[in-house]
C-alpha cells in the first residue's frame, strides 16, 4: 500500500463521518488513434460525507476525468466507484441518469445554463425529473435562488446576468434537488478574483451550513484554500493529500 493510501486509511479510522465516495483500484484508459492512453492509474480514494475536496494538478493529470467518474458521467475502465454504497458500473444508462438526478449536482466552469430559459426556469430543470407539481417546483427553485442570493433575478435570462450571477444560478440548479454530492469543474475559472471569492464562499457555506459534500477541480490555489481537503494529482495518480 502506498504512503498516500496509508494517510487516507489513518484519516478514515479517525474520522467518524460516513463514507460517501469510495474509489477502489480505479483505472481509466481511452484510445486515441491506435494508442491506449491511461488517464487514471490504480487510484484509491475515500471521501466522507460533508467533505469539501479540492482536486488540483496540471492539465492532463486526470482530475476532470476523476470528477466525471465520481459524477456518473463516464464509466470506469476497471476498478470500482461506489457512492453511498452504490457501484456505478453496475447501473444501466437510464438508472445512472436517474441516480445522477437524485444524487449529484453539477457546477461547470462555463455555467452551462440554457439560454432560452430564465434563471428560475434553469433552476427548475432538475425538478422536472421529480414528482413535484408545478407549484412545488417553483417554490423550491425560488428557495434555491434565495440561498444563492439571487431573489431579484429570477426572471432574467442568462444573457442578462453577469458571470458571477450565472454561476450562482448554476449553483442553485445544482442544489435544488437537494443532492448529497456537488461536483464542480473549475467553478471559478471564468470569473474575476472578487467574484470567484464570492462563489467559493457560497460553496463553503453550502458545505458548512447545508452539509453538502463537494468535490471541486481547480487550478487556483486560492480556491483550494476554501476546501477542507486538498488532493494533488499528476499523470493519473494521487500524489498528496492535505487536510
Amino acid at each position, binding site marked *: 500500500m502506498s504512503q498516500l493510501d496509508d494517510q487516507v486509511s489513518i484519516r478514515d479510522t479517525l474520522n467518524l463521518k460516513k463514507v460517501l465516495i469510495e474509489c477502489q483500484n480505479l483505472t481509466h484508459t481511452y484510445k486515441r488513434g491506435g494508442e491506449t492512453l491511461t488517464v487514471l492509474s490504480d487510484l484509491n480514494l475515500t471521501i466522507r460525507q460533508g467533505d469539501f475536496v479540492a482536486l488540483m494538478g496540471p492539465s492532463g493529470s486526470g482530475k476532470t476525468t476523476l470528477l466525471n467518474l465520481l459524477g456518473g458521467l463516464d464509466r470506469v475502465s476497471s476498478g470500482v466507484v461506489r457512492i453511498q454504497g452504490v457501484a456505478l458500473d453496475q447501473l444501466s*444508462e437510464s438508472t445512472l441518469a436517474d441516480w445522477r438526478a437524485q444524487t449529484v449536482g453539477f457546477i461547470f466552469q462555463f455555467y452551462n445554463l*440554457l439560454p432560452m430559459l430564465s434563471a428560475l426556469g434553469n433552476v427548475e430543470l432538475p425538478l*422536472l*425529473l421529480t414528482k413535484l407539481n408545478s407549484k412545488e417546483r417553483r417554490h423550491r427553485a425560488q428557495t434555491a435562488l434565495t440561498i444563492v442570493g439571487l431573489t431579484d433575478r429570477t426572471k432574467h435570462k442568462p444573457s442578462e446576468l453577469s458571470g458571477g450571477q450565472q454561476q450562482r444560478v448554476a449553483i442553485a440548479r445544482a442544489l435544488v434537488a437537494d443532492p448529497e454530492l456537488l461536483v464542480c469543474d473549475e467553478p471559478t475559472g471564468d470569473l474575476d478574483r472578487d467574484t470567484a471569492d464570492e462563489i467559493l464562499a457560497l460553496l463553503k457555506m453550502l458545505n458548512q451550513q447545508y452539509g453538502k459534500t463537494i468535490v471541486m477541480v481547480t487550478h487556483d490555489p486560492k480556491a483550494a484554500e476554501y476546501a477542507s481537503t486538498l488532493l494533488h494529482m499528476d499523470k493519473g495518480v494521487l500524489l498528496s493529500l492535505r487536510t
Partner: protein
Amino acid sequence: MFQQMTTVTIMNLAHLGSRVGTCLVVVVGIGGVVAVLLGLLAMSNGFRTALMETAKPDRGLILRNGSNQEMVGWVSNEEFGVISAYAGFAILSPEIYVTINVPKLASGLAADVVGRGVSDSAFDLRKEVVIVEGRKFRPGTGEIIVGSGAVGQYRGLALGDVVMVRNAALVVVGHFTAGGTSVESEIWMDLAVSQDIFRRTGGSSVVRVKLLDATTADAIDAQLRSDPRLTATLVMEEVFFAGMAQARAGLIETFAYLIASIMALGSVVAALNTMYTAVGKRSLEIATLRALGFRPMCIVMSVVIEAMLLALAGALLGAGIVYVAFDGLTAATLNGSGSQTVFAFKLSFEMLVTGCVWALLLGLVGGSLPALRAARLPITQALRGG
C-alpha cells in the same frame, strides 16, 4: 418522461429563430414534395370527378360487342331498330362520336376535342345540359354548340366563330354547361349532319340509353348479347366512366407517387442535414440536460418531434400552395379515348391528410438519425464541445 420531453422540445423550438435558414430548407423541401404530390393527386381527383359525375345510375351505353370505347363503336340503323323495340328503355339516343381538331387556347397547338352528333333525344337523356349562351343548333344545319369547359380551353369557339371540319364550316351558335361533367368538354352538332360530314351514314357510334329501371341492366345486357340480330352490349355509365377514370387517373396517381418519392429522397437529405446541424449547435445543452439526469430517449423524442413539426409546416406550406394556385383551376388531358377532357383540379381533405402523413414520415426519417447521434454521444465528449 412526458414532461421531460415537452420541456426539451419547447427548448428546441425556442431555438428555431437562431437557425431560420436551415429550418426553411426542411420546410421548403418537404413543402415542395407535398405540393407536387398534392398537385398531381388533385389533378387525378379532378379528372376522376369530372368523369364520375357524368355517370348516372340509370343511364348506359350500347356499344358494339367487344368495344369499350365510343370512338370505335358502331351500331347500324338496323340494329338500332331492333334495340328500339326492346322493352325497358325510357330514352334511346343514337350518337356519333368523333374528334375535332381545335387549337389550344394557351399553346395554340392542335388538340382533339370530342365532337358528338346528337338528336333531340340526347337533350332529353342528359337533363343536365343547359344552354347558357346563344341557342341550340338547328337540325340539318352546320351549327354547333360548345361545352363551357371546351370554350375555356380552346381557341375559336366563341359564338359566331367558324370551325372547319373536313371542308365543312361549322358555326358556333351556343354554349352549354352540363353540371361540371365531362360533357362540358364536348362539341355537339346535329346527328344527321355529323353522319354526313364524318361519313358515318347508316348507323351511329353508340346508343346512349336511359333505363326505366336501373336494376334491369344485367337482364337487358344478357338479352342484347344473346340476340342473334345484334352484336351489341349494354355498359352502364358508372362502369364505363369508372373504367375510363381508372385508366387515366390511376396513371396520374402512380406518376404522382413516383415523382414525390424521388423528391422525398432529396428532402430527407435536407432534413437530415438540418437536424444534424441543429443537434450539433445544441450539443452542449443536450449534454447538460443528460448530465442533469434527462434520459437519452427524451432527447431522441424531442429532436424527432422538432423534425416532424418542421415537416408538418412544410406539408401545410405545400398544401397551401396547391390550394391557392391549383384548386379549381381547369385543365384538359387525354381521356383515354384519344380526345381531351376538361376538368378542374380538386383538392380534398383526404389528400391533405395524405400530404401530412408523407411529410411526417419524412420528418421522422430526417430526425431519427441525428436524434440517435445526440443521444449516443458520450456526455463528457459533448460537454467538451463534441
